[in-house]
């Protein structure tokens, strides 16, 4: 006899998963319904208006309604702008935040970037753990970054390597991206922009205390000159704590519609982050470790110009590969072990360098350094051909500004 408890357990464990086909159908119809719910009666309104406005009495009545409407709307507008809530309250509340967990979503990308941040008593960044999905840098693949006291450890999962760097540029870049969503820095920016006439701030404070305060900052076109990358930001602020729960960014699309481009969600305010989160303890045993803080990487710039050293780096790298000096090639290529370089070029035999072109600044903003296009003669299965590798990209080594190396792909 089957006991009742077992049946209860079985029912509790029942689990169905929706099929992709169903998901597609629901999403399509649901989003269409949502879009329709936004447009009150765009199709019918002009027609009704035409019929009503033909009548002279209704014309008079309509004028009266408009006057009342305007008066009312002024009153209502005044009410909403007489802010019981003020952004300063969020700034004040944010100053006591020591721990923060953030998910940063990009429209069209399923996986968010995720950050765990610990601030020191002065509000400065103490520790960061960042999970970066593959879409953020497809050539690198997904990576995990742990940053502490100016030193960053980057675990490239796809490349099975752990790179340690200590560099002002890297720290500045990381801290700049954190500052974009650090509430105590982001909110004063809105106020500053409003003060200079570059943003209009509107606050909606619902009477239902369970619902968030919605603060909309709409930027003027001139704000772009001051580095504001979006056209509108919407903050959702918890009425009790006055802390931000979500921040949305919009760009002005064609047809004067604001289109959501990315959004950030804030979790676990001041919930202490386990110190273990800021230590790598589950790395694969065969991971390749490159410590750029203790080893000399790449080539010394000496008295060469940046373009000259970029060119020299690429030439000496491929010369080393041709000469099978994998140790040197590895040193130039971010200090990758010789065995890894040998493995990389096992099937792709480089015969000679045909040409190396003038270095061009790296096309992706913020990456720095150069792309050095080149042509190589290669041999595969006894057949010779011309090969133009992607890049190669060359820049000064993190933490070793007088040395230059190859980063990214080389084949």
């Amino acid at each position: 006899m089957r006991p009742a408890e077992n049946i209860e357990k079985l029912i509790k464990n029942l689990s169905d998963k929706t099929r992709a086909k169903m998901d597609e159908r629901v999403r399509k119809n649901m989003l269409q319904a949502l879009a329709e719910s936004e447009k009150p009666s765009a199709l019918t309104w002009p027609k009704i208006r035409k019929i009503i406005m033909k009548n002279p009495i209704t014309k008079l009545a309509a004028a009266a309604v408009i006057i009342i409407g305007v008066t009312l709307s002024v009153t209502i507008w005044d009410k909403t702008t007489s802010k019981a809530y003020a952004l300063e309250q969020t700034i004040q509340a944010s100053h006591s935040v020591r721990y923060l967990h953030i998910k940063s979503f990009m429209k069209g990308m399923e996986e968010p970037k995720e950050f765990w941040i610990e601030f020191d008593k002065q509000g400065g960044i103490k520790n960061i753990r960042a999970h970066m999905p593959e879409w953020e840098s497809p050539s690198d693949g997904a990576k995990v970054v742990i940053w502490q006291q100016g030193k960053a450890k980057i675990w490239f999962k796809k490349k099975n390597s752990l790179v340690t760097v200590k560099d002002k540029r890297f720290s500045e870049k990381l801290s700049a991206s954190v500052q974009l969503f650090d509430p105590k820095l982001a909110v004063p920016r809105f106020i500053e922009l409003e003060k200079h006439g570059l943003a209009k701030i509107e606050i909606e404070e619902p009477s239902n205390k369970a619902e968030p305060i919605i603060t909309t900052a709409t930027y003027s076109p001139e704000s772009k000159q001051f580095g504001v990358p979006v056209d509108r930001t919407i903050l959702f602020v918890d009425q009790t704590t006055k802390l931000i729960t979500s921040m949305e960014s919009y760009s002005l699309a064609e047809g004067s519609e604001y289109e959501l481009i990315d959004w950030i969600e804030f979790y676990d305010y001041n919930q202490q982050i386990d110190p273990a989160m800021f230590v790598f303890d589950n790395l694969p045993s065969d991971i390749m470790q490159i410590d750029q803080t203790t080893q000399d990487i790449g080539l010394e710039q000496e008295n060469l110009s940046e373009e000259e050293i970029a060119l020299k780096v690429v030439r000496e790298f491929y010369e080393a590969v041709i000469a099978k000096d994998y140790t040197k090639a590895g040193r130039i290529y971010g200090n990758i072990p010789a065995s890894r370089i040998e493995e990389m070029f096992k099937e792709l035999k480089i015969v000679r360098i045909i040409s190396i072109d003038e270095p061009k600044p790296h096309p992706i903003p913020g990456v720095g350094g150069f792309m050095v296009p080149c042509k190589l003669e290669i041999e595969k299965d006894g057949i010779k051909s011309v090969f133009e590798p992607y890049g190669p990209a060359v820049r000064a080594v993190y933490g070793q500004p007088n040395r230059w190396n190859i980063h990214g792909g080389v084949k």
Partner: protein
Amino acid sequence: MLEDKLLVVKCRRGNKEAMCRIYDKHKDYLLTLSKGLLGEQATAEDVVHDVFVSFARSAGQFQLKGSLRAYLATCVINLARDKIRARTRQAQVLDSMNPDTLRSDNPAQNLIESEEITQLRQALTKIPYEQREVVMLHLKAGMKFREIARLQGVSLSTTHGRYRYGLDKLRSLLNSEVKE
């Protein structure tokens, strides 16, 4: 909970991403509930579809009081009842339902679903709907008997009784003690 409230507010403002997040978060749970109540995969999917489309249509005016999950579950229950009524009108007696229709047409799920679960799904369709509703709402939706009683418009003792009878019948069916 807080996250759901925020998503609802965003939906009210026409945010598509928030709408999809709500769907992704609750879809499997609602499908399980719907399938438990209705038995058939296709009808269960239709109910979940209709719940979300209707929710999206009213998103502009929607005010969340309590839990979103409970609200959506209640919508599933109401729509499932409509389906059952329609089915009864069409004289499609549940007992005559072809057991094959109870199997999910999701091949991956069929592979992992044990024979025990398939038997349970079949047994569920054979107990009276009111009893099935109480069993599913209590065990799967985590609703309290008092809430279920309110929803079904019956007394608390009737709800307890329906739960007990439902479980007893399920046990009998699963132990093949019921003479068909």
